[in-house]
């Protein structure tokens, strides 16, 4: 947990509207765990005022090169251009100065070894699942069920395949993989692997459906949530979600930034979350 004043190593469009940015962060590999996120700041300009939260896609090294440049450790984020901040980000270049605060939050619990692991990713929700897969694959069979609206939303699946993850793609418009919702695939898989651990990240309606399915099948589920965030460190209380047992008299708010973004499904009050006020507009779609 530090504020790194650093530079961008690269920033590329990998699918229409989706970017992949590598940021120089020395020794990040030692501290970043699957499910962690960072608060990203475009250094020199004031708007956007607040930092933007992004999951850590992965950490890595650029090897030392023949010009005598030393090895460089980096963290990588994948982001979708949706508004003011991400639009500015998409215009950043190698060498531009940025600040990242992190790694933040509570990551995934690895669960028991050797049980089937099913990861469910919706669109950009795929991001935190890659580092998770890289860990889980060491001891377990890992399957990725990846869903999106259309072909463009299906990103970096081949990278999971390279890890040895079995991947299943579905799109709502059928433009890639199976036509339909990723939750239909999950239903099928859970009938086949009734003892699987499930890990999911994606839009709220998808997470709700995943939660219902997992509850029915009585399999453990961890979800990574999004929420509007100002501080990212538990200080502002802007990012809360309702925990199980929450009432106005017995508040059980949980900070997404500090107690999450990964929660065990049973920590959360899914009925109350689904109410209108339960999550931000931005995180719905």
């Amino acid at each position, binding site marked *: 947990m530090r504020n790194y004043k650093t530079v961008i190593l690269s920033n590329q469009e990998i699918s229409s509207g989706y970017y992949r940015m590598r940021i120089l962060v020395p020794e990040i590999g030692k501290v970043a765990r699957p499910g962690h996120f960072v608060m990203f700041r475009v250094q020199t300009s004031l708007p956007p005022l*607040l930092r933007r939260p992004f999951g850590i896609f992965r950490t890595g090294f650029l090897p030392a090169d023949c010009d005598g440049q030393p090895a460089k450790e980096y963290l990588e984020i994948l982001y979708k251009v949706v508004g003011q901040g991400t639009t500015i980000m998409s215009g950043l270049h190698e060498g531009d100065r940025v600040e990242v605060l992190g790694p933040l939050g509570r990551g995934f619990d690895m669960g028991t070894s050797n049980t089937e692991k099913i990861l469910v990713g919706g669109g950009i929700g795929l991001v935190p699942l890659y580092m998770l897969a890289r860990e889980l694959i060491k001891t377990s069979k890992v399957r990725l069920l990846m869903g999106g609206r259309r072909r463009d939303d299906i990103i970096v699946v081949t990278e999971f395949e390279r890890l040895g993850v079995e991947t299943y793609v579905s799109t709502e418009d059928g433009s890639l993989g199976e036509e339909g919702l990723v939750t239909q695939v999950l239903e099928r898989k859970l009938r086949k692997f009734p003892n699987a651990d499930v890990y999911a990240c994606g839009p709220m309606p998808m997470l709700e459906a995943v939660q219902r399915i997992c509850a029915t099948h009585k399999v453990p589920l961890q979800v990574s949530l999004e929420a509007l965030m100002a501080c990212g460190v538990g*200080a*502002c209380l802007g990012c*809360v979600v309702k925990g199980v047992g929450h009432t106005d008299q017995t*508040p059980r*708010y949980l900070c997404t930034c*500090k107690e999450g973004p990964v929660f065990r499904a049973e920590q959360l009050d899914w009925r109350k979350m689904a109410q209108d006020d339960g*999550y931000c*507009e931005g995180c719905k779609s």
Partner: protein
Amino acid sequence: MTGRAMKTDKNDRRPNLAVEIAGIRMKNPVMPASGTFGYGEEYAPYLDLEQIGAIVTKGLSLNPKAGNPTPRIAETVSGMLNAIGLQNVGVDAFIQYKLPFLREINTPVIVNFFGNTLEEYGEVARRLADIPEVAGLELNISCPNVKQGGIVFGTDPKAASEVVGLVRKHSKKPLIVKLTPNVTDITVVARAVEAAGADAICCINTLTGMAVDVKTRKPRLANKTGGLSGPAIRPVAVRMVHQVVQAVKIPVIGVGGIVCAMDALEFLIVGATAVQVGTANFVDPRAMPNIIEGIETFCIEEGISDIRELIGSIQL
């Protein structure tokens, strides 16, 4: 810029930045604004808590408070709206679970608090009255985001003086009263709380604002309205601090939109004895240490040996 180097050479001693507010001694005049710094521990990984002038906690109430539904925050142009709704652990849990961490830190702790009723204000003050680790109280009569408590007391000089009087009765701790900017004439309220026994005034809390999502046609906050903070409001804050300083004899703490040392200096120059940094902590967790360093550099460059020479030095 050449002037800079020359002046620095002449004054390479470090200036004295220490200030005192209502008997609370601070190493320097920079502290966090309530609600933007949790209970102190959240930012401990990013800065040395012993480097700042004081620690100001999130607002406490008698009982734990749920706060408002989400969404609770929305970014605006150079500002943000919040309607947290004063979610907090309650005064007893604070004393039990949060204070032990703060006890170990050699920096005065100022506890911000509020009540849903007049009596509750009094009771919270009473429970904190004998806690030695609490250096001072900051009485919030200015939160725009909860129906009872807060702003109703802050906009009516009579109600304000009543609550201050009651709290005064229950506690001998240094008492800072935090005012709302959402009033026609802030000097009226300032004078009322001074007369009722406040030791210092903190201003400003947030300006009430609203933002709408034009696609969904819904307010961007579940609470509909929220408090506007950040650099956008700084000119309003500077003006009000200037007015209050002229109107009362007790010290004033300036807050509103401070991001860098230059911003903090504006408040000191119009007469604030200290400043609080709020939203800027979210933008940069090291905002406060940077501001302290910047103030020090400014003093050195300008040949100021004691920060008190600067306070109230406005040329009108």
